[in-house]
């Protein structure tokens, strides 16, 4: 047993029990349905702002050209625009590719020894695919949930619902019925992706080695959120109208707890509240942090533009050339090597010739 994932797992189970048992107590429903969600949202907003403002105060590092392509330099070297952006517009493209398509995960490789000692590097795309599925499914699920928070439901949300539920299926057995309400695939994709991301940490031993409790906890929590949501919609069948009454009450600051809301719903909203409150203090802040990735969001123009340190002031310098000019005779006497041997100066005429020569060399 590995405490790094057993402790988060136990934590999530305890959270589940708290909400599930708490929701059975009539008075506590108000706590789980109204008080905790409000507190969680406040924590999220203030915590997020606090973290981002904290970041905005830290020093901006020098440009870090970690690139997979050539920087803009000489005209005959092909410039790789979106790997090594030279202007703001190209940086925007690089950032968009990173944030929307997770380009740096796409570059994952795995090193393997082949036929004894031959090293080979192979593309490793499973993490990229899993991460894309996870984040986009999560986004669709989030947008879809706006139907609980806005009345009338906006057209965009309806459009996404229609696309998400295009997949019709029907499984009808006495014990298991599935098909109506229509199946939203995003929820299942989310559940599958979060399971994959967990199993990856469990079975890829390099990843397991670097995984700690704060890696597992959000995975378990999101797993719990997705599972309780799916359970509520397809199995225990919560009364959607009553749930929307509750959520609209939250949004319009007229909180109510209508009758007939299932305990599973309270588990669901409690998990979401925990996620929101935990968010600003965890690795999940990469939602905001990704925009501040110093290796991605700065122009890589260190060969085009010279960086002058802004707090430089003129310093009196004594270059080596000047130093040698000053001490050349003494150095030669002491047997130290010099760049330019002093002219032996036996004849008078060539000496006048050698002087302009020396100056030329200095330049």
């Amino acid at each position: 047993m590995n405490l790094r994932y057993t402790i988060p797992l136990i934590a999530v189970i305890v959270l589940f029990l708290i909400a599930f048992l708490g929701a059975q107590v009539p008075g506590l429903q108000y706590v789980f349905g109204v008080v905790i969600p409000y507190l969680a949202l406040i924590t999220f907003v203030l915590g997020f702002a606090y973290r981002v403002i904290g970041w905005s105060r830290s020093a901006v590092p020098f440009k870090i050209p970690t690139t997979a392509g050539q920087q803009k330099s000489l005209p005959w070297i092909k410039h790789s625009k979106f790997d090594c952006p030279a202007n703001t517009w190209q940086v925007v493209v690089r950032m968009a590719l990173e944030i929307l398509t997770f380009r740096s995960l796409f570059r994952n490789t795995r090193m393997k020894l082949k036929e004894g000692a031959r090293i080979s590097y192979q593309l490793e795309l499973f993490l990229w695919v899993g991460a894309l599925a996870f984040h986009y499914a999560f986004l669709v699920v989030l947008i879809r949930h706006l139907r609980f928070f806005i009345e009338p439901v906006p057209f965009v949300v309806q459009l996404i619902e229609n696309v998400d539920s295009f997949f019709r299926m029907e499984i009808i057995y006495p014990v298991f019925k599935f098909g109506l309400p229509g199946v939203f695939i995003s929820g299942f994709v989310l559940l599958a992706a979060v399971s994959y991301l967990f199993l990856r940490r469990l079975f890829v031993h390099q990843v397991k080695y670097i995984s700690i409790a704060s890696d597992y906890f959000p995975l378990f929590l999101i797993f719990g959120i997705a599972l309780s949501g799916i359970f509520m919609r397809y199995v225990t069948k919560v009364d959607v109208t009553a749930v929307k009454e509750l959520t609209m009450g939250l949004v319009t600051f007229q909180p109510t707890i209508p009758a007939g809301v299932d305990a599973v719903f309270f588990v669901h909203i409690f998990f979401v509240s925990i996620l929101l409150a935990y968010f600003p203090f965890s690795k999940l802040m990469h939602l905001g942090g990704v925009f501040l990735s110093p290796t991605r969001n700065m122009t890589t123009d260190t060969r085009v533009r010279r960086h002058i340190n802004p707090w430089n002031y003129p310093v009196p310098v004594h270059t080596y050339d000047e130093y040698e000019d000053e001490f050349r005779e003494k150095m030669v006497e002491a047997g130290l090597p010099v760049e330019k041997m002093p002219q032996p100066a036996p004849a008078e005429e060539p000496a006048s010739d050698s002087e302009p020569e020396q100056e030329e060399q200095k330049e």
Partner: protein
Amino acid sequence: MNNKTLIIAGLVIFLIIVLFPFWYMRGKAAPAPEPVLTPMAKAAQACVRSTEYMKSEHMQLLDVWRESVVRDGKRIYVNPQGKEFNMSLSNTCLDCHSNKAEFCDRCHDYASVRPYCWSCHIENPKEKT
């Protein structure tokens, strides 16, 4: 660097998006719709199943009905009270709930569901005959 203003602007935009439902609704109350019962439904007093069951599981009941009629050819449904119903969307549900617009649709608009059934099934069977 003027990164600070840029970051704060991004943060403000993010928070505006997060709190979108709050400022969009502006405290406007959005109570749950009250489905209107027709005189016929009122006289019948009870639905096919208990009201709680109907509220949350009527779609599944319809799915079971459809399966039973279309695949097994069985058209009679007996509810737990022993009452018999003809398993039909238009002829049973919309017989009692003939006011689809004030009943089914009102609820569905609120919950943002758009059942695709009506592209084939008649919405108002009484009007037709």
